[in-house]
Every structure is written in structure tokens, then in C-alpha cells.
């Protein structure tokens, strides 16, 4: 890695660039060191705490290739090929192959797993999967810090914290780098690279509100707002299923904390207001089936008036299990869980936990070949796999190929005139003194106002078309925004990517005329269409979105 000072800021040159320092970026950095690659990873926050892993995770999914049922690569690959779109068998096999090395690193940095009764690691079933693939982590609060300690010492890996990335660059269909600004000092940074792994986060938050109307009170990190999709899309990457990949979970009432995986897979019962358990109507595996079914089921009960309130009931657990869930797993999932419990007087052994349907987090995937290379040459997709395991292993797998391909290319040269022009534009809100200028919240809140109103769990085509027009109106005010400091400038840039992703989501939804594949239902197309059992691909062509369908069989 080399850095030179320029009149506009600092120019970095690195063989491989990692965008984002969450779980996925960390997986990429670990693989880079194994391959002796020269890499620079940059992102917002610090490596110690950024992303969804920052405040803790309590489960890691891994197939361990034992004699147990479904504990093998074929079952794993089959499950994801059947239940998701856009994967290739070779990709999933590589995810599987990354379990062992990633677990070895987690062990090395001091991650403690709940032991199994007959030795080994305890495991449970989740998300409607056939095998017991979920390992329980007992000291999950500190995983990110422990990994960071290791990564900061890796040879060849440099870390640049506190950078809001505003865009990526490409030339002739090949990635060349990115630029952004330091959110503390304001310095502009640009990075030129040979290849890149994007790890900017699989989920985007702040597209919708939960019952508290505070977009930062959400389940995934609120500081990931869609850049994984929008920034790659702008340089030519194709995005898959920006429509149906949006997802949510059940939240503890009033609080954006996940943790349903632990509750469901240990056998929690969801109850409606009448104290009845109802999930059997919506999924043969009841609460521990597909999360989409739990949300749609709860939503249906709510429409029929059987809730709110809704509860997760753990009173039938053994005292040891209830204790393990509340006092070991949950605080590892979100560090402040027990403070919330104390404030609400929650004791899993004695009282059901009131829950609500969470806000929708938008998602999707970057279309990638069997080597995780996107439709932009030299740009590899680090966040295409789900969950903590998928993020860490996904970064690891993508880097394997990005590091190899760095040998194929010369160092890119960036157009400094272009960087100067973008810098001027990116910083313009700091100079906007117009009396009618919009603050970051003036600009961002209407995005959710539109999404919550027209794009909830029940919607229709005319409503989504109108929503898109309203998002266009918001976009037309982009030049009118102001920021009084770098903090607000960062929030504005987060909002710009969020707005683009919401537009991408709605436009994609308009292409798919059916209900039941995503987490929303269309009144005008209420049924599942078996002919649409395929991926929807969108790609920027001559400045406009171009759609195509990806047949499952083609994978």
C-alpha cells in the first residue's frame, strides 16, 4: 500500500481494496493475509466495532461434516439452491469450505462455543434448515474486537477507519477504485486498486420504521444503508432480487434487537393476544420455520385483530435453557439486552416476552460468477451469503479470487480531475447557506414516510408506482441539502444511497407480478406464480435500469 498527498486529499494505491470493515471485510482481510496480498480495507466506524457484528452475535452457522444427518456439503448446497435465488452450486461449496478455516480463526481469537453433551460443539436447527447447523457462541460481545486485534497485526493488511465511501470507480468495465471522506477530519481519500472486494453490507436499514418511529432503533446496523448495491450498480454491477430479498424479524416490543434465531430454535412459542399459539397455520415447522412465514403469519393475525399484543413464550423451557437463552445468548446478540430486560421487568422463566413485527431491511445480491466476480471485472462480491457465517466466509471466499486476479492487472490510475469535481459536489452541503436548504433529516425522513405508507407488507402496483414518483420528488431536492458539520454530511451521504436503493427496490417490485415470494403481498397479484420461480436481475444500461430473469436451472 502506498499513500501520496495531493492538493485534493490523499491518494492510496493498493493491490486489493476491501470496502467495508464489518464481518465480511474481516473475512476478506483474513484470507488476504493467507495469500500474502497487499490490501487496504476502509470503511466507516472503527474495525473494532463497525457493522452488525460490532455489538455481538451469538450464533455461527457451520456444517461440520460429521456423521449427523444433513451435516454435509450436499445438504447445505441443496438447501440454499432450493430456498434462495442467485446462488451457484460452486459458490455455496466454497462457503462450505470456508467454515473450517473461519472457525479455526474464531477459536484462535478466543471465541467460546457452547459445548455439546457428548463433546464437540452444541448445535441447533434454525430457519427451516434440515440439519443442526447453528453453533452457540457464549462470549459473542467481544468477537469483533478479538478479530480486530488479529487483523491489525496482519502483514500486508492496512486499515483506514472513519471513511464514508461515496462512490466506486471503473473504466472499461473494470473496477479501478473508490473515493470518500474522513468523517472526523473531512479529508478526501481516493483509492486506486488492481482488484476489489465489496463488503459494504448485505442489509440496508433506515428504509422503514418499526413502531417506535426511530430509524436508528433497528435490528441490523443502521449505518449500512445500501451502498453494497447502489455503488456497485453505478459502475455496472448487476443486482439480483432487489424486490423480494427485503426481510424483517420479530423484535422485542419497542426495541431494534434481533435474537429471534435463539428464541425460535430453542423452541419459543409465539402467542397472539388471546394467548393462542398460531404459527402451525403458516408453517409446518411452526415458529422455527421460515422467518418470512412467521412475519406473514403474525401480520395476518394482526389484520384479523388477534394482536397486538404478540408474545414469545419461553415459560415451558427448562430453567437451565431459559437461563442460557436470556443471560448467555441474548446479551451476546446485543450487548444491552439485559438493560432492556431490566427496564421492562422481563424474565423468560416467568413472563412471555412482548414482541412486534420489525421494520423491513432491504437486501438483494450482486450477480456473481462461480468465483464471486461481479459483472464488473475485478470487483468481487463479499456480502452475498447470509448471516454472520455468510458474511465472514463470503469475504474470505471473495478475497481468494480477488487476490489471485490482482496479478492479472496493472495498478489503476484514477482521473484526478474527476476526483476534484466529485469532491466539490460531495462537500457542497457544507457550504449551502440557503434559508430553505434541507437538513439531513428533512431529506431522509420523507423517504421512510413514502416507504412506510406505500410499501409495507401489504401493497399494490399503483401504490408502488406513486411511491416511486414521490421518491423522484425527493431525489429532485438532492442539490438543496445542507450539512452543518461532517457528521451531518455523513448522514446525508447515507441517505443518498438509501434513496437509490429504495427506488431500485420499488422499480424491481413492479416487474414481479405475484405475491408470496418476498415479505410483502400485492392485492392486485395475490397468488404465487410458479413461472416466476426465478431471479430478477437489474443492470444499468445507458443510464436506465435494464431487467432480465435468471432461470434457476441455469445456475
Amino acid at each position: 500500500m502506498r499513500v501520496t498527498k495531493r492538493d485534493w486529499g490523499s491518494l492510496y494505491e493498493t493491490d486489493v481494496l476491501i470496502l467495508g470493515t464489518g464481518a465480511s471485510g474481516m473475512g476478506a482481510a483474513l484470507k488476504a493475509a493467507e495469500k500474502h496480498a497487499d490490501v487496504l480495507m476502509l470503511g466507516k466506524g472503527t474495525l473494532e466495532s463497525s457493522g452488525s457484528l460490532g455489538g455481538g452475535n451469538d450464533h455461527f452457522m457451520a456444517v461440520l461434516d460429521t456423521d449427523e444427518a444433513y451435516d454435509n456439503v450436499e445438504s447445505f448446497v441443496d438447501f440454499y439452491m432450493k430456498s434462495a435465488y442467485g446462488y451457484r452450486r460452486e459458490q455455496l461449496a466454497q462457503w462450505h469450505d470456508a467454515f473450517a478455516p473461519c472457525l479455526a480463526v474464531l477459536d484462535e481469537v478466543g471465541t467460546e462455543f457452547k459445548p455439546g453433551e457428548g463433546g464437540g460443539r452444541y448445535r441447533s436447527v434454525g430457519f427451516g434448515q434440515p440439519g443442526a447447523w447453528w453453533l452457540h457462541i457464549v462470549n459473542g460481545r467481544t468477537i469483533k474486537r478479538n478479530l480486530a486485534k488479529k487483523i491489525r497485526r496482519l502483514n500486508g493488511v492496512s486499515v483506514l477507519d472513519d471513511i464514508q465511501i461515496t462512490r466506486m470507480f471503473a473504466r472499461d468495465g473494470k473496477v479501478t477504485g473508490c473515493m470518500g471522506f474522513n468523517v472526523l477530519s473531512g479529508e478526501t481519500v481516493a483509492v486506486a486498486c488492481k482488484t476489489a472486494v465489496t463488503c459494504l453490507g448485505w442489509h440496508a436499514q433506515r428504509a422503514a420504521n418499526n413502531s417506535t418511529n426511530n430509524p436508528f432503533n433497528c435490528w441490523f446496523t443502521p449505518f449500512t444503508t445500501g451502498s453494497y448495491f447502489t455503488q456497485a450498480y453505478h459502475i455496472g454491477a448487476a443486482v439480483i432480487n432487489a424486490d423480494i430479498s427485503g426481510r424483517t424479524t420479530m423484535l422485542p416490543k419497542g426495541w431494534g434487537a434481533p435474537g429471534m434465531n435463539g428464541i425460535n430454535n430453542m423452541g419459543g412459542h409465539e402467542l397472539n393476544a388471546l394467548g393462542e399459539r398460531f404459527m402451525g397455520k403458516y408453517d409446518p415447522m411452526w415458529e422455527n420455520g421460515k422467518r418470512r412465514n412467521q412475519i406473514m403469519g403474525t401480520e395476518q393475525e394482526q389484520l384479523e385483530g388477534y394482536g397486538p399484543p404478540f408474545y414469545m413464550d419461553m415459560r415451558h423451557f427448562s430453567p437451565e435453557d431459559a437461563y442460557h437463552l436470556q443471560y448467555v445468548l441474548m446479551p451476546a446478540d446485543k450487548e444491552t439486552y439485559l438493560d432492556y430486560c431490566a427496564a421492562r421487568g422481563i424474565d423468560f422463566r416467568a413472563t412471555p416476552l412482548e414482541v412486534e413485527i420489525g421494520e423491513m431491511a432491504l437486501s438483494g445480491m450482486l450477480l456473481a460468477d462461480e468465483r464471486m466476480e461481479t459483472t464488473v471485472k475485478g470487483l468481487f462480491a463479499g456480502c452475498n451469503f447470509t448471516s454472520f457465517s455468510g458474511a465472514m466466509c463470503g469475504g474470505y471466499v471473495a478475497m481468494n479470487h480477488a487476490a489471485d486476479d490482482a496479478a492479472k492487472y496493472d495498478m489503476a490510475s484514477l482521473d484526478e480531475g474527476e476526483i476534484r469535481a466529485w469532491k466539490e459536489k460531495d462537500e457542497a452541503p457544507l457550504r449551502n447557506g440557503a434559508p430553505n436548504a434541507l437538513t439531513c433529516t428533512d431529506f431522509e425522513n420523507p423517504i421512510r414516510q413514502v416507504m412506510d405508507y406505500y410499501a409495507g407488507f401489504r401493497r399494490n402496483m399503483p401504490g408502488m408506482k406513486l411511491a416511486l414518483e414521490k421518491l423522484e420528488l425527493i431525489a429532485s431536492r438532492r442539490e438543496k441539502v445542507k450539512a452543518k458539520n461532517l457528521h451531518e454530511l455523513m448522514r446525508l451521504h447515507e441517505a443518498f444511497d438509501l434513496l437509490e436503493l429504495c427506488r431500485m427496490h420499488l422499480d424491481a417490485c413492479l416487474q414481479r407480478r405475484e405475491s408470496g415470494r418476498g415479505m410483502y403481498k400485492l392485492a392486485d397479484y395475490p397468488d404465487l406464480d410458479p413461472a416466476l420461480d426465478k431471479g430478477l436481475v437489474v443492470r444499468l444500461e445507458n443510464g436506465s435500469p435494464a431487467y432480465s430473469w435468471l432461470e434457476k436451472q441455469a445456475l
Partner: protein
Amino acid sequence: MPPLFDSEKCIRCGMCVRDCPAYILELDKKRDRTPRVIEEYRLECWHCGNCRISCPCGAISFEFPLYTLV
């Protein structure tokens, strides 16, 4: 509320400020550099607990805001 800081226990190391992914903490020059939440951005707290995980002195506690309790 976002985090509360015990100025007796706090050694003013700034680690909580450094590791807050929301960038909403600062050392308060008027209160002998005890950290505080920047009032204007307090609703941006994710309640992730990163500040407390980073604190070497156990100086941070949480009081959950009213909007999360109803």
C-alpha cells in the same frame, strides 16, 4: 437514554468516543472531559453497547428511553 457516564469511574481515555459507530459521543470540555452524548444526535444511538464494551473502567450504564418501553 443513550449511555450514562459515571465521572468518578471514568479515566477519560476516550475509547467509548472512538468506538461509537454512530459518532454521537464527545469528551465534554466543560465537565472535565467526561464523555457525553451529543444532545442533537442522541436519537441516533443504536443501543449497540459498543461504548460499554470498549470502556476499561465499567463507567457506562444504560437507561432505556421511554419510547422503547411502551
